[in-house]
């Protein structure tokens, strides 16, 4: 089997699907990498839910401004055309359906589009942030998975989520290290599969039935 996709490969593949001019919210962690792979000639406006549109890359160490951070509390910059606003406006953008695409990570995604990405249980205090608002409010919800299968061997793509839900029937598409999968009324539909990976091999690593789109594309890891 060929190499699985790296986080950068997945981010590059996701970025190809974001339309020019889209208002996009990138979750903390791996989804942030999408910003590094915006195709030439395309312009995305990045929304950061703490109150920023037009989020730019991290500043040079000597140009850090503690008043300018992202949702992960990391220093960022603002690009031309950007704006600052308060929390109620920021979440009106999300909850009012103004954000075109929300790209986030997940522990589990179900064939009916349910997502669990905020709680693993345990004794630590729970923390939700803006995840429930994003999955309920963004026009499209895409999930990025650095690995199709969790460390314990269980697939992150399941028939029904067993972890506490973030939202119901809201995920439109999944990008993993093995495949790109649409979720429609009949469940998982594979549109892209890792080059060299058999359909049965992908199915064996997925916790719910798969259908394969006609002309299913091949994903290749790039040497970076």
């Amino acid at each position, binding site marked *: 089997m060929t190499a699985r996709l790296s986080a950068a490969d997945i981010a590059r593949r996701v970025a190809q699907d974001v339309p020019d001019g889209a208002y996009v919210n990138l979750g903390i962690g791996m989804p942030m990498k999408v910003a590094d792979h915006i195709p030439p000639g395309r312009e995305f406006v990045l929304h*950061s*839910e*703490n*109150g*920023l549109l037009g989020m730019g890359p991290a500043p040079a160490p000597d140009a850090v*401004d*503690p*008043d*300018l*951070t*992202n949702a992960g*509390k990391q220093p960022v910059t*603002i690009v031309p055309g950007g704006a*600052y*606003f*308060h*929390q*109620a406006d*920021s*979440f009106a953008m*999300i*909850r009012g359906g103004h954000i075109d695409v929300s790209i986030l990570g997940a522990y589990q995604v179900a064939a009916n589009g349910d997502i669990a990405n905020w*709680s693993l249980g345990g*004794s*630590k*205090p*729970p*923390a*939700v*942030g*803006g*995840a*429930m*608002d994003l999955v*309920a*409010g963004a026009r499209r919800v895409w999930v990025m998975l650095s690995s199709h299968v969790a460390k314990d061997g269980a697939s992150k793509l399941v028939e029904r989520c067993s972890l*506490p*839900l*973030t*939202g*119901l029937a809201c995920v439109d598409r999944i990008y993993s290290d093995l495949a790109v999968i649409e979720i429609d009324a009949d469940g998982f539909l594979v549109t892209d599969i890792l080059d060299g990976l058999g359909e049965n091999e992908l199915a064996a690593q997925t916790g719910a039935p798969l259908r394969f789109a006609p002309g299913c594309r091949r994903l290749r890891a790039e040497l970076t």
Partner: protein
Amino acid sequence: MIDKRYTSAAAAVADCEDLRDGAVILIGGFGDAGVPERLIDAVRERGLSDLTIVSNNAGSGDYGLARLLASGCAARMVCSFPRSSGSVVFEELYEAGRIELEIVPQGTLAERIRAGGAGVPAFYTATGYGTPLAEGKETREFDGRHYVMERAIRADVALIHAATGDRFGNLTYAKTARNFNPIMAMAARTTLAEVRTTVDMVDPEVVVTPGIFVDRIVEVGA
């Protein structure tokens, strides 16, 4: 003459009648951006008890909000993300069962505060429907979609941070340090603002929080 300026954070909190045991206190900020640290310190020194603190995060390190919580003055925290890196104080209190936590989706928290400030007692949102955070809450269907009813938050006191202010209480903010501050200013019986600088008059075209929402302001410098 209207003049809402106080000479120090301690003076601003000293005779504030809404700051009392059992009070509900809104505290602005997101992470370390836009946190009214001097006012928080001044409130801590009042030695109150049984407070309910409403803030997006639960503080980090041993300063500001974390230090306030460490003093044991708070019985309850309403918050969207109390588990930031370095939020050791809150985690210890929580795991020891010494503080109650109400976890709220960030947008629902913002809208509950905005609604409180706007005189709206409750509203419906799709956020959280079907999740553990909607358990026990009234739900309703509109146009084929399910929504959860959420109650507004009204507080006794709001502590907020701003960039500039004038004697009328008009405020402007700095970049993403704005965050929860403008909506919290609207939702409390008494709003105390710490500002980096006071000016004769904030340009009316750039006022973000009009002075009607602000009761006391303190200049604290950068």
